[in-house]
């Protein structure tokens, strides 16, 4: 059973409110192979972020079973099996860029020389060499988000969980970072769970697209993306790309309830 990076069986999460129970997630069944790039897409309130947070053991499900690398999410978190990239970069402003990337290595007790090597390597991967000594507020939003990706990469976890990491960035920067992320995934072969609002982003990046819908949050479709792994940005104008994007759009419509 442990060949799956992530496996969820009948996963559900409900929480009580004054107006009764809200089902944030209902009957989620999903298996993610090691090395896959999974995009989770859906309107607000469909539970895509909640699902990612359950995988990261930041949230506890109320029913069902979830395994991450064959472990419970809590065990996987303790085994430092994943790096998490949040919606905002969330760099610590009192630390320089290099020190921010070094933060997980300090917490995890890497020795000094290895820390420096890994920080250099991770900053190089995201194209931020030369910015080590800058402070986060001196960098643009796109550069800050790249630093936060370097921070999630530097300790070399098998799984990368990304919660709308590029949502707040303008389209030009976003395109650029999508391209870099794809290259990074191909280079490292990590398993990626990527939450997004954007259909083109999901189709461009993912090897499989999970379409979700709200109230209750559930999976309504899983779409295989058979685009070639080599994906220049222009692929988005090809008829194959548009066909898959249409499939995703139809699945989102069928899920309905996208008025917010």
């Amino acid at each position, binding site marked *: 059973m442990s060949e799956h990076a992530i496996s969820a069986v009948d996963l559900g999460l409900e929480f009580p409110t004054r107006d009764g129970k809200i089902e944030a997630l209902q009957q989620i069944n999903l298996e993610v192979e090691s090395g896959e790039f999974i995009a989770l897409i859906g309107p607000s309130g469909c539970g895509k972020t909640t699902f990612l947070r359950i995988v990261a053991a930041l949230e506890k499900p109320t029913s069902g079973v979830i395994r991450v690398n064959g472990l419970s999410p809590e065990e996987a978190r303790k085994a430092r099996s994943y790096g998490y990239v949040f919606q905002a970069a969330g760099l610590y402003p*009192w630390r320089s860029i290099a020190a921010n990337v070094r933060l997980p290595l300090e917490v995890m007790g890497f020795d000094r020389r290895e820390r420096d090597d890994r920080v250099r390597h991770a900053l190089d991967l995201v194209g931020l060499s030369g910015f080590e000594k800058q402070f986060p507020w001196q960098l643009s939003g796109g550069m800050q988000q790249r630093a936060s990706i370097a921070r999630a990469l530097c300790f070399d976890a098998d799984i990368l969980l990304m919660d709308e990491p590029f949502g707040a960035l303008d389209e030009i920067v976003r395109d650029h970072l999508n391209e870099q992320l794809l290259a990074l995934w191909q280079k490292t072969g990590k398993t990626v769970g990527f939450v997004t609002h954007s259909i083109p982003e999901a189709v461009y990046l993912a090897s499989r697209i999970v379409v979700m819908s709200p109230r209750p949050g559930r999976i309504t479709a899983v779409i295989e993306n058979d685009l070639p792994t080599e994906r220049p940005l222009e692929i988005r104008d090809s008829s194959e790309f548009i066909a898959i994007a249409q499939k995703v759009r139809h699945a989102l419509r069928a899920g309905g309830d996208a008025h917010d």
Partner: protein
Amino acid sequence: MPAPSVIIGAFAGNGAMLWGDLVQTFFKGALSGYVIGCSAGILTAILIHRSLFLRRGLLPVGNFLAALPIVGTAPIFVMWFGFGWQSKAAVVIAMVYFPMLINMVEGLSSSDAMQRDLMKTYAASYWQTMFKLTLPAAMPFAFNGLKICTTLSLIGAIVAEFFGSPTLGIGFRISTEVGRLALDVVWAEIIVAAVTGTVFYGLVAASERGVTFWHPSIRGRSAS
């Protein structure tokens, strides 16, 4: 009010005495009380941060301490701790402890949810999170407390001397020289106290700029 030239004369004639008063009141009474009281406030805040119960329960107690009128506590502390600077330090501790505690408690809760989640994803321990996130994020609040306490400590040490002290100290001198109508010396003491308080505040504010250089309220100023 005596003419400025007379006050300057009082400085010139009483240099050694003024210096002795300053050492007694500021360096012995105010500063030691400030260091002990602020450290105690910071340490208490760190220790109770983990427990919501203690946070809720200790703040009213601290508030009660801060509400004790200094003119009532000072003579009692003199009875307990003697005429020397120790009783003045005790008054200062009682004055600065609560403002420091409440600022620090607030500061320790000032990291945001995402910053804390990040530490969680690294499976960081409570104390790792404390030293790498919670404490650095609390520094702007800590310095607010430290700055407020600079002037409080000096006022506390001076007023406490009115209720009994050896024959030196800024407060002692003011109360006796007023009785002898030597207002030039009183003014000289007031100026010494005011300058000392300002320099003390300035030093703390300068170290704040060094420590919290990253905070939006600071970083804009030095850049432009």
